[in-house]
């Protein structure tokens, strides 16, 4: 069984620096100047799962991202982890997409790579975290899909038995390939890149496609292909008491306990 696996990865600002991320008041998009970019953490789990399948059976693992030119860095890291091929979807027309506009570029991108059996995604990203892109790609590709995947096992040759998380417990699902699976953190522990991996990656080429090369109508992607629109940003004002207590720790704690009793907050 030779499988073709495509892993979708998104470059995101490092959550450790989130306090520095701001929203551009004019364009209403995230400004990430000076903030290091990483591969979205769950997308590394998706790649790890692809690589493990490759180690068990014979498979080819491609990674794909839609993003600005610097998203190339994320692809390089994925190649160093062990991916075989990398594809960058890059065009001004792709900018400021909502999840529909994003899926509208990624689905034809995946088809452009060629024949595929399994598409792997992260369940959600750390920078906007809608979790919508995976199911939407699956819809455009007309393949079955599952989210919150925490375990993948091969049943018959082209059938998987998947454990998919629920609020309380899990669901067991039988899925026929080709399919899209969006994975959770529990599925595995992503490997680290090795020096050998980095050297091997230098040999691998990153292919870039723009809108025209994908054969996509620019009106279906980016901001034009996005039905949702940010109309305004605003400060939410809270109606709370907002009493701030300074002073020595002893005094502050004493005063706080008094207040809590006053408010009846300690009664159980």
């Amino acid at each position, binding site marked *: 069984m030779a499988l073709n696996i495509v892993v979708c990865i998104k470059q995101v600002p490092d959550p450790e620096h*989130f306090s520095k991320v701001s929203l551009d008041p004019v364009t209403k998009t995230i400004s990430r100047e000076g903030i290091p970019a990483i591969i979205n953490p769950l997308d590394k789990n998706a790649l790890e799962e692809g690589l493990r399948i490759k180690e068990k059976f014979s498979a080819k693992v491609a990674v794909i991202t839609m993003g600005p030119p610097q998203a190339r860095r994320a692809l390089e890291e994925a190649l160093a982890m062990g991916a075989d091929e990398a594809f960058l979807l890059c065009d001004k027309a792709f900018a400021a997409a909502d999840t529909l506009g994003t899926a509208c570029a990624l689905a034809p991108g995946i088809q452009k790579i060629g024949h595929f059996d399994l598409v792997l995604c992260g369940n959600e990203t750390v920078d906007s975290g809608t979790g919508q892109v995976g199911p939407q790609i699956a819809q455009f590709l007309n393949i079955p899909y599952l989210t919150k995947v925490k375990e993948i096992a091969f049943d018959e040759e082209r059938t998987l038995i998947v454990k998919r998380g629920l609020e309380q417990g899990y669901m067991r699902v039988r899925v026929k390939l080709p399919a899209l699976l969006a994975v959770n953190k529990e599925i595995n522990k992503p490997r680290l890149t090795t020096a050998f991996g980095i050297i091997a990656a230098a040999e691998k080429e990153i292919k870039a496609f723009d809108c025209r090369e994908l054969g996509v109508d620019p009106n279906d992607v980016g901001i034009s292909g996005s039905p949702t629109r940010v109309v305004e940003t605003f400060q939410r004002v809270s109606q709370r008491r907002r009493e701030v207590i300074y002073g020595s720790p002893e005094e502050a704690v004493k005063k706080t306990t008094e207040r809590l009793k006053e*408010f009846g907050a300690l009664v159980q």
Partner: protein
Amino acid sequence: MSKEIWVWAEQRQGRLMPVSLELLGKGQELSRKLGGKVAAVLMGAEVRELAAELLEHGCEKVYVAEDPILSLYQSGPYGNLLAGYIEESKPEIVLWGATSVGGELAAWVAARLRTGLTAHCIDLYIDDIKGKPQLVQVVPGWGGNLALKIVCDTTPQMATVKPGVMAEAPRTKAQGEILPLAVEIKGGDFRAETIEIVEEELEERPLEEAKIVVAGGWGLNSLGSFELVGELAKVLGGAVGGTRPALDKGWITESSLIGQSGKTVSPDLFISLGASGAAQFTTGFEKAKVILAVEQNPQAPIFEIADIGIVGDLKSILPLLIQELKKGL
């Protein structure tokens, strides 16, 4: 045909998910402004009792798709049927619970209908946008208490909302009607087939039920451990929660994450320790009766939403607070 606002009423194992009744409450509020009726769509094997429950909470129409094949959630048929029903009835707005199932289903249906979907809304209301009444969808933004207003230019306008964010629709005299829908299964619908749902007992008491919640953030790192958060919770008989950095650190489990990506709680007392107060975090406990925050940076946005704020170092304050509260109870 009059405008309708739809709520996807999710049932699991024959029980209505509470978020469905919460969305119904919001749907009723929206319909008072927009006009038209609030309807629920309910799918499953035998769901008449659940339909009655929706009517008893003021739902005006319950569309019911009943078939043994729909007893468990099946992503293929559920998605195809719902998209079909929406195409046929053309509701103005569709609201979905952002549960583990509702989130993916809404996304898939949105793609199939080529319409927008706003995730994890913290508020929804109708407002005139360019002279047209539209659904304004509020989501947390970046930097303190910043929020974004999002609108959608295509119909239906669709949004997901996490459990616990909206208030449940009150009980009233049932007056609405139950309308059956045709269930037509297409070839290929079962390429992904749910075999079983396994319910697992939770290890801890659900955070949502606790009267007191003590949550820790990245600031606990300077104490070298999360231990004192647990101790304070124990003294108060409360539950432990945390921010995303606390989850990333492995101090808390996913089921104790509070905020946009985690749980929404409304305890009598919420204590936030060493958390800056990002909107994605604070949205998870906005409805707490009393909020106490301990944080060393006086500029931190957490103080904007706290009833009582202590500016200071957790290293000295937390042990004292535990001691004092032990005495006081």
